[in-house]
């Protein structure tokens, strides 16, 4: 292995892989990828000097000589079944960062709907690879633009309603995987999308790094339920950036569950593009071992009469470290904004920690904005009450934790989807409780 | 005392009051009754001068002087008191502090010296006793954490302290049980005098058993469609609004 500096090493990895990446024969795409890798080299990895990266460092990534995954791979059927939704869906499975056609099944789509893996979306590639912005913070998404090997393109024309959920499952591997998604809903279109990041099972010890960028545009009056379940191996690194724009009268509901990584960061930027829109973002963080799990949000109320709600819950055990940064900006013209935010944390071990920074920047006066944060252990009185009814203490704790998590689980659309998320959460709690954690 | 002439008023560009004529003489109590949405509360806000309630035609004369160009506080100081249907909460401001500021603002306008703290407390406590209010209410923040009934009683208490010339009671009976209603009515009646008038806005006849009006008006779709004596209220109770409105049409 070479001992090249980190950014140069990755630039080299790009050069080596360039010919096999989607769009390798399209000059525009290649130019864009080259510009992106150059931008990444210039910017480097984000670090503590950036206010939005104050609590999360990526030094661990720099210590590893990353390779891009081998081209082919397949997933063990049992593993796929365990990870998949127990309901009819449009399923796109990615293994080794590539679309696995055999494991996937895209059902019949209504007219005006496009649903493809990025590797087959030649006509949209340049669009999909467009930069996430121009700030220093975009270095990871530029790296992603350069190296993206696949992802999902979902385009719905005005009024198109998908009756089945779109299910994206990626199996992590011990390599650097870059997935890039474009989800664009026209006016009054409706969809439900589940992104699942799962343990590929290659090795418990070898770390993989999944780097995801998702661009989401919700048209006027459209509705999108967007669920994200990050549940890779405990050795995994996961970085995701989502940019969402929400049109007038639209509704965007996002639920993010983080439950398996050594280090995971989910950064979400939501821009209100039209008035009377509603955004609900909820998160559940389950940290054990020495997991470092970060949610960073920026909700930008740029137009009047919009509502946003954020609810984040953290269960932190062992040496776990949770980070919640919730930014709300209300622009001067965004009168009648209603923006609420709440972060709650249970610290369950002596070495567990949380850093939270709920930030309100308010430049309009006729607004209702609030945020709250609470940090503590499981309520002793509740625990005692349950013990007094004869419930063993471990069981009582697990029940209380499950109740704590339920509020977020409940934000997932009812039915198979919610059952799926709930099963994961309950499974995590049970497994940790059994091995003597969550005390 | 109060002369309302061909009063038209709009809220958000929508005409709610469509030509009201009404005269209240000193010492009289008029009841304004009408179904929901007839413009009763709008009339009270227009009289008190609330922003956003625009008078497009007509005039309101109070002792011969037009109120239209006066700010809400100027009307209050002239002696117009509105007991709110939904009294507003003001966190952190003690009832006593608030009321003393109000009493002294009104006194100043009348050329009287400020009421000193001792006199204020003595007067306030006496009035509270009449209204069977706990003295502790003086130290609590204005209307904050008050029950519906407590808020209404607090309105009547403020009225007693400010001694207005014209009291407008906007659905003061809503949310009150029968005992509270009696107490509030007694409070209002205690203020009745040949110099003072009142406009009692209510949906139900019940309150008028206790505050007996001299005149009853029925308001519908922004107009007074019928005027009569106190028996009109009983007739309304018996027949309902629909019949009266149909008769008048």
């Amino acid at each position, binding site marked *: 292995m070479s001992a090249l500096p980190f950014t140069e090493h990755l630039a080299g990895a790009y050069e080596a892989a360039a010919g096999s990446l989607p769009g390798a024969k399209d000059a525009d795409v290649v130019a864009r990828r080259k510009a992106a890798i150059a931008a990444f080299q210039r910017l480097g990895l984000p670090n503590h000097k950036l*206010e939005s990266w104050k609590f999360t460092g990526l030094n661990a990534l720099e210590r590893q000589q990353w390779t891009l995954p081998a081209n082919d791979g397949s997933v063990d059927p049992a593993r796929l079944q365990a990870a998949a939704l127990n309901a009819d869906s449009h399923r796109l499975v990615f293994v080794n960062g590539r679309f696995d056609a055999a494991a996937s099944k895209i059902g019949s789509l209504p007219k005006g709907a496009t649903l493809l893996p990025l590797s087959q979306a030649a006509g949209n590639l340049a669009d999909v690879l467009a930069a996430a912005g121009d700030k220093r913070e975009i270095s990871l998404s530029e790296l992603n633009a350069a190296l993206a090997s696949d992802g999902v393109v979902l385009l719905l024309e005005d009024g198109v309603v998908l009756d089945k959920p779109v299910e994206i499952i990626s199996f992590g591997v011990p390599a650097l995987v870059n997935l890039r998604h474009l989800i664009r809903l026209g006016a009054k279109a409706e969809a439900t999308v589940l992104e699942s990041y799962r343990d590929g099972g290659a090795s418990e010890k070898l770390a993989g790094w999944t780097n995801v960028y998702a661009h989401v545009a919700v048209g006027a009056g459209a509705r999108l339920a967007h669920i994200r379940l990050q549940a890779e191996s405990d050795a995994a690194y996961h970085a995701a950036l989502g940019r969402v724009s929400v049109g007038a009268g639209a509704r965007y509901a996002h639920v993010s569950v983080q439950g398996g990584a050594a280090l995971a960061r989910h950064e979400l930027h939501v821009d209100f593009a039209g008035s009377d829109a509603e955004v609900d973002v909820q998160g559940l963080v389950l940290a054990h071992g020495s997991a470092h799990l970060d949610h960073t949000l920026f909700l930008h109320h740029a137009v009047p009469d919009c509502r946003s709600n954020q609810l984040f819950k953290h269960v932190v055990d062992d040496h776990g470290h949770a980070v919640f940064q919730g930014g709300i900006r209300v622009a*001067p013209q965004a*009168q009648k904004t209603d923006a609420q935010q709440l972060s709650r*944390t249970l*610290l369950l*071990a002596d*070495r*567990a*920690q*949380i*850093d*939270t*920074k*709920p*930030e*309100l*920047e*308010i*430049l*309009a*006066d*006729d*607004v209702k*904005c*609030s*945020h*709250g*944060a*609470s*940090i*503590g*252990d499981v309520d002793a009185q509740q625990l005692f009450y349950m013990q007094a009814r004869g419930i063993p203490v471990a069981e009582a704790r697990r029940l209380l934790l499950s109740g704590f998590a339920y509020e977020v689980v409940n934000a997932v659309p009812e039915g198979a989807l919610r059952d799926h998320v709930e099963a994961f959460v309950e499974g995590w709690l049970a497994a940790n409780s059994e091995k003597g954690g969550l005390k | 005392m109060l002369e309302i002439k061909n009063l038209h008023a709009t809220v958000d560009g929508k005409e709610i009051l469509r030509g009201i004529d009404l005269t209240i003489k000193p010492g009289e109590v008029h009841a304004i009754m009408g179904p929901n949405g007839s413009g009763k509360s709008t009339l009270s806000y227009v009289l*008190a001068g*609330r*922003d*956003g309630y625009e008078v497009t035609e007509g005039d309101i004369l109070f002792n011969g002087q037009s109120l239209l160009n006066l*700010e*809400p*506080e100027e009307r*209050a100081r002239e002696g117009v*008191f*509105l007991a*709110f249907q939904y*009294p*507003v*909460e*003001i*966190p*952190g*401001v003690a009832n006593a*502090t*608030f009321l003393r*500021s*109000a009493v002294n*603002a*009104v006194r100043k*306008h009348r050329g009287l010296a400020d009421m000193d703290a001792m006199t204020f407390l003595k007067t306030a406590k006496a009035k509270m006793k009449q209204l069977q209010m706990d003295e502790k209410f003086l130290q609590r*923040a*204005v209307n904050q954490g008050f029950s519906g009934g407590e808020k209404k009683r607090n309105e009547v208490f403020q009225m007693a302290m*400010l001694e207005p010339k014209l009291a407008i009671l906007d659905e003061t009976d809503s949310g009150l049980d029968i005992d509270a209603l009696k107490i509030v009515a007694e409070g209002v009646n205690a203020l009745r005098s040949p110099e003072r008038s009142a406009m009692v806005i209510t949906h139900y006849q019940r309150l008028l058993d206790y505050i007996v009006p001299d005149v009853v008006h029925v308001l519908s779709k922004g107009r007074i469609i019928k005027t009569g004596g106190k028996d009109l209220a009983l007739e309304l109770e018996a027949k309902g609004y629909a019949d009266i409105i149909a008769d008048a049409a």
Partner: protein
Amino acid sequence: MAANAQTIETVEGLAGEYKYGFVTDIESELLPKGLSEDTVRFISAKKGEPQWMLDWRLRAYKSWLRMAKEKGEPGWAKVSYPEIDFQDIHYYSAPKKKTLKSLDEVDPELLATYEKLGIPLKEREILAGVAVDAVFDSVSVATTFKGKLKDMGIIFCSMSEAVREHPELVQKYLGSVVPVTDNFYATLNSAVFSDGSFVYIPPGVRCPMELSTYFRINEAKTGQFERTLLICDKGAYVSYLEGCTAPMRDDNQLHAAVVELVAMEDAEIRYATVQNWYPGDKNGKGGIYNFVTKRGACRGARSKISWTQVETGSAITWKYPSVILQGDDSVGEFYSVAVANNAQQADTGTKMIHMGKNSKSTIISKGISAGRAQNTYRGLVRVMPGAAGARNYSQCDSLLIGDRCGGHTVPYIEVKNRSAKVEHEATTSRISDDQLFYCRQRGLSEEDAVSTIVNGFCKEVLQKLPMEFAVEAQKLLGVSLEGSVG
């Protein structure tokens, strides 16, 4: 004649807005503008300081030079202003008559100034029970009541005097809470501080009266760099008040003070500030840059430090009175009202660093923005691994008056102990039309209504102030917000 009357009217009008905006005509000794090692040596020599103090200052100056070169002024706060030319400031200004034995020797002009400010320098203060150390520009002018306090073993004197008379205490504690290199302005202050107050309360003594300092910047283009050091020994108690005013001037003036508090076992310090420096005019011309470092250390078990501040003045406020809760069961409190009107900018808050077991902190912050002002609460609550059973409750409320101002909340919460309990709440609202109309319907003018509602909004903080200060603070709130509605 007409022009004359008009001038008087104008002046009166201005005085109504900022009534402390007069300039006192006193002969003063003014060091030429500019900052160099010589400036530091001059100040130190002027005060007859011992060598160790000069060395300390010079170390600070060298650190500051390095900071200025490497990073410059801190840029993370939500305030903006043109870069300060540190060579365009007078670092020393003192009224000429010096070394005063009694109040009778104080320049009558100066006494008249304090009278205008409403500070009880003479007999009245006995009734009020306030002992005042008045700092005029850079020099502590008179410390009253010294004799009475001395009998109890309490030291209340100017910093210059303390350096000379109580070197062992100063050497032990100066810079022990705010290290020399803590931050850009604190380091500058350490190099050039001219005077300030020093307080030492011996073990077991309960200071029988409120101690008070009144700061005033009079000279143009003068920086004021006071240094206050307050030590409350085991089981002692003191309540300290601080007030600030400055004349109206078109250019900005820098005020970079450092306040250090030390509370030993079972000691309690209450520190209240009413800050009413000149905020600049409606268009943001002039006003004080108030860049202040205030920090207290709860060194001993069960010690308590309580900061209360009412910040209505200054063009820019950059201030985070903090408490380091080292002792077990120690208590830190921060009660703040910050008003920013017109073009004012305030970035203020606190840090509560929990190290001791069962340490508790409370933060109540009320920010009011009006005009085009920007008002930011910035705070840190940090619970260290050893701070078992730590508790914090924070409440930060912003009130916006008008649609051109901003109210921001940036709390950092870092918890590394599971048995800690931390709660934070923040709200942003405006004065509702309903509340305004309700008050006006009862006869209050619009301005009185605003003032009443704002005072209600700030009540939890105002009631923490000593009575005389609370009354002044309430009036200040009203005055500061004049012209903010309508």
